[in-house]
C-alpha cells in the first residue's frame, strides 16, 4: 500500500426484485423470453399510458431495506430521471431521487466470523430497469446499428448505495458478499451477477493524505456493470494501481465512467463525466407519494428471517467452524438444508462435515445445488444414522452416498442391495481374527515384542478377509484381546 494516499470506495448495487409482474405494469418478469413478448403499452412507453405501482415490489424493497438496517420512510416519492437512450422507452426512468424509500443502513464486513467493520448504507430506493440492446456487428457503434428488446424494461429494481466507507478492494469484496448473504435470506431476488439480477458499479478514488476536503469533491472513477464479485475486486485493484501510477507521475485523475474487461483484467474509459449529465429530475406527476403505515413497516420487520450474524451465531453454537459457517452463510440453500438435516440428526458437526465435503462433491458433479440435491436432508440424516449405529463405516458410507445420489434410493435399501453392511457380530470377527493370528505368527511376535506397527498389518488382513465390512474399532479391540491370550498361551 502506497503511503501517500488512502483508497476511497463506494458501491452502488442494483438488485432485480423477484416479482411476478413488472414494477408499473402487469407484464411478466420472466427471464429469457423471446424479444418483446413481455411488453405492453405501459412498458413500451406508448403515448397516454400511466404507471401503477406493484405492491409486491414495495414489499420486497421494504424487506431489503429493513434487513440492511435502514430506516424505512413512511413517506417517499417517485421522480423522473430523464435521458435519451433507446433502451429507456419513455426517455425517463421512474426512480426515487430526493425522498427515497429508506436511508441510513449498514452492512457488516465479516472476517473469521466476526464483524471487522461496518459499512454505512446511504440509501435504498426503487426504480425500473431498462431494456436490452443487441448490437449488430461486433459492438456498440458499429455501422449496422442496434436492436432493442424491451422485455426487461420495467422490471423492478432496488438500488443500494453505500457510503464511501471501503478502503480496499478486499473490503469491497466482503461488503458485496455480505450484502448478497443478507439479501439471499429474504428470497426477493435471484442475486445472479452473471445474469444481471445483481449489478454493481464501483466508485473509486484516491485521497492524497494531505487532502482534507470533502470526499465527494475528489475526482471519482465509476466502474460500471461488473458481472461478478471477483471482477469487482479485480477492477478496483486495477483502478487503484492505475490512479496511483497517474498520481505518482503528477497527472490529474479525470472523473469518468470506465468499463471492466475481464479478459485482460483492466478498466477502460467509456465516457468522460466532465460534462455531467443533466437528468432534470422532477417529481413523477403520475404517481402520488408512497405512504407506508407504521404497522406495515413493523409487520415487515417482524417477518424478517434471522440476520446473517444471527445465523453465524447459530452455526458457531452448533460447533461449525468459522470457515465452514461462511460457506453455509453464503448459500441460503445450504442453510435451509443444514437446518432441515440437523433437525432430524443430532450430531450437527457430522451433518456439516458431510454436507460440505461429500454432498457438495456430488452437487458439483451433477450440476445441482442444495435446493435440488437428489439426496435430501432426511436421506442424509438416515445415512448418518447408519454410521452412528455402526452399520456402516465412514468409507462405506461414502460409497452408499454415491449410490443414493445416482439412484435416488434410500440408504438402508442400498446397504442391503450392495451387501456392504458392516460386520458388528463379535463372534464373526473373532473367527476371522483367530485365523489371521494363526496364519501370521511372526507378525504377532513382532507386535508382542513391542512393534505397534504390526497391529496395522493385522487389522488390514482382517479387513481384507471381511471385504472391509468388519467394524474397524471392534477389529482392533478383538485383535488385541486375542493376541493377549496368545501371549499367555
Amino acid at each position, binding site marked *: 500500500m502506497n503511503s501517500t494516499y488512502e483508497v476511497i470506495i463506494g458501491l452502488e448495487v442494483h438488485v432485480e426484485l423477484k416479482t411476478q409482474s413488472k414494477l408499473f405494469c*402487469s407484464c411478466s418478469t420472466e427471464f429469457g423470453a423471446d424479444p418483446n413478448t413481455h411488453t405492453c403499452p405501459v412498458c413500451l412507453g406508448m403515448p397516454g399510458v400511466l404507471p401503477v*405501482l406493484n405492491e409486491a*415490489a414495495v414489499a420486497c424493497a421494504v424487506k431489503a431495506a429493513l434487513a440492511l438496517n435502514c430506516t424505512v420512510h413512511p413517506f417517499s416519492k417517485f421522480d423522473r430521471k430523464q435521458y*435519451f437512450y433507446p433502451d429507456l422507452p419513455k426517455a425517463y426512468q421512474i426512480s426515487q431521487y430526493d425522498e427515497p424509500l429508506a436511508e441510513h443502513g449498514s452492512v457488516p464486513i465479516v472476517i473469521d466470523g466476526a464483524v471487522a467493520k461496518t459499512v454505512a448504507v446511504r440509501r435504498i430506493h426503487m426504480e425500473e430497469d431498462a431494456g436490452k440492446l443487441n448490437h449488430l456487428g461486433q459492438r456498440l457503434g458499429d455501422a449496422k446499428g*442496434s436492436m432493442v428488446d424491451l422485455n426487461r424494461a420495467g422490471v423492478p429494481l432496488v438500488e443500494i448505495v453505500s457510503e464511501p466507507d471501503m478502503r480496499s478492494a478486499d473490503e469491497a469484496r466482503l461488503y458485496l458478499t455480505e450484502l448478497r448473504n443478507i439479501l439471499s435470506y429474504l428470497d426477493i431476488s435471484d442475486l445472479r451477477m452473471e445474469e444481471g439480477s445483481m449489478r454493481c458499479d464501483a466508485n473509486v478514488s484516491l485521497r492524497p493524505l494531505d487532502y482534507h476536503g470533502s470526499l465527494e469533491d475528489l475526482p471519482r472513477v465509476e466502474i460500471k456493470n461488473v458481472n461478478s464479485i471477483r471482477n469487482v475486486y479485480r477492477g478496483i485493484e486495477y483502478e487503484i494501481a492505475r490512479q496511483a501510477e497517474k498520481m505518482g507521475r503528477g497527472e490529474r485523475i479525470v472523473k469518468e465512467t470506465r468499463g471492466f474487461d475481464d479478459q485482460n483484467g483492466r478498466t477502460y474509459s467509456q465516457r468522460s463525466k466532465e460534462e455531467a449529465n443533466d437528468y432534470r429530475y422532477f417529481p413523477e*406527476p403520475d404517481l*402520488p*407519494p*408512497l405512504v407506508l403505515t407504521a404497522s406495515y413497516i413493523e409487520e415487515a420487520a417482524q417477518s424478517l428471517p434471522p440476520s446473517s450474524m444471527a445465523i453465524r451465531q447459530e452455526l458457531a453454537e452448533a460447533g461449525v467452524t468459522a470457515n465452514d459457517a461462511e460457506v453455509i452463510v453464503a448459500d441460503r440453500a445450504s442453510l435451509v438444508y443444514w437446518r432441515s438435516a440437523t433437525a432430524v440428526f443430532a450430531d450437527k458437526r457430522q451433518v456439516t462435515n458431510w454436507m460440505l465435503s461429500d454432498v457438495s462433491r456430488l452437487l458439483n458433479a451433477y450440476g445441482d445445488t442444495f435446493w435440488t440435491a437428489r439426496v435430501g436432508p432426511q436421506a442424509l440424516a438416515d445415512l448418518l444414522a447408519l454410521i452412528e449405529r455402526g452399520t456402516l463405516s465412514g468409507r462405506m458410507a461414502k460409497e452408499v452416498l454415491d449410490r443414493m445420489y445416482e439412484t435416488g434410493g434410500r440408504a438402508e435399501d442400498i446397504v442391503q442391495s450392495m451387501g456392504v453392511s458392516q460386520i458388528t457380530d463379535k463372534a464373526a470377527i473373532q473367527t476371522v481374527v483367530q485365523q489371521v493370528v494363526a496364519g501370521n505368527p511372526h507378525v504377532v511376535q513382532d507386535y508382542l515384542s513391542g512393534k505397534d506397527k504390526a497391529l496395522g498389518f493385522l487389522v488390514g488382513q482382517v479387513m481384507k478377509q471381511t471385504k472391509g465390512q468388519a467394524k474397524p474399532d471392534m477389529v482392533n479391540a478383538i485383535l488385541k484381546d486375542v493376541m493377549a491370550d496368545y501371549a499367555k498361551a
Partner: protein
Amino acid sequence: MALSEEQVKHVARLARLRLETGDIAQVTRDLGRVLDYMTQLNAVDTENVEPTMHVIGLAMPLREDRVEPSLTAEAALKNAPDPRDNMFGVPRIMDGGDS
C-alpha cells in the same frame, strides 16, 4: 434573466431538438420574452410555502402482483419505424449516446 444563445443550444441538445442556425436568434428572443415575464414570480415570497406536486392529497394505490397477458411481439412492433427480428432497430450508437 435573459437567455443566451449558448443556453438555448444547450437546452435544445438536452431536449434532442435540432435547431437550425438561422432559427436560434428568434427562438432565443421568444423564450427570453417569456422568461422575462416569469421574473414577476420573484416578487412572491414563497419561503415557507410547500410546493403542490399533487393537487389532491392521494396516497399511492398499489396493484396486485399478477401477470396479465402481454402484447404479441407483432402487436408491440406494429407501429415501429424499423422493426428487425422482432426488435426495434436504431441507427448506430456513438459515444455512449446518452450524454
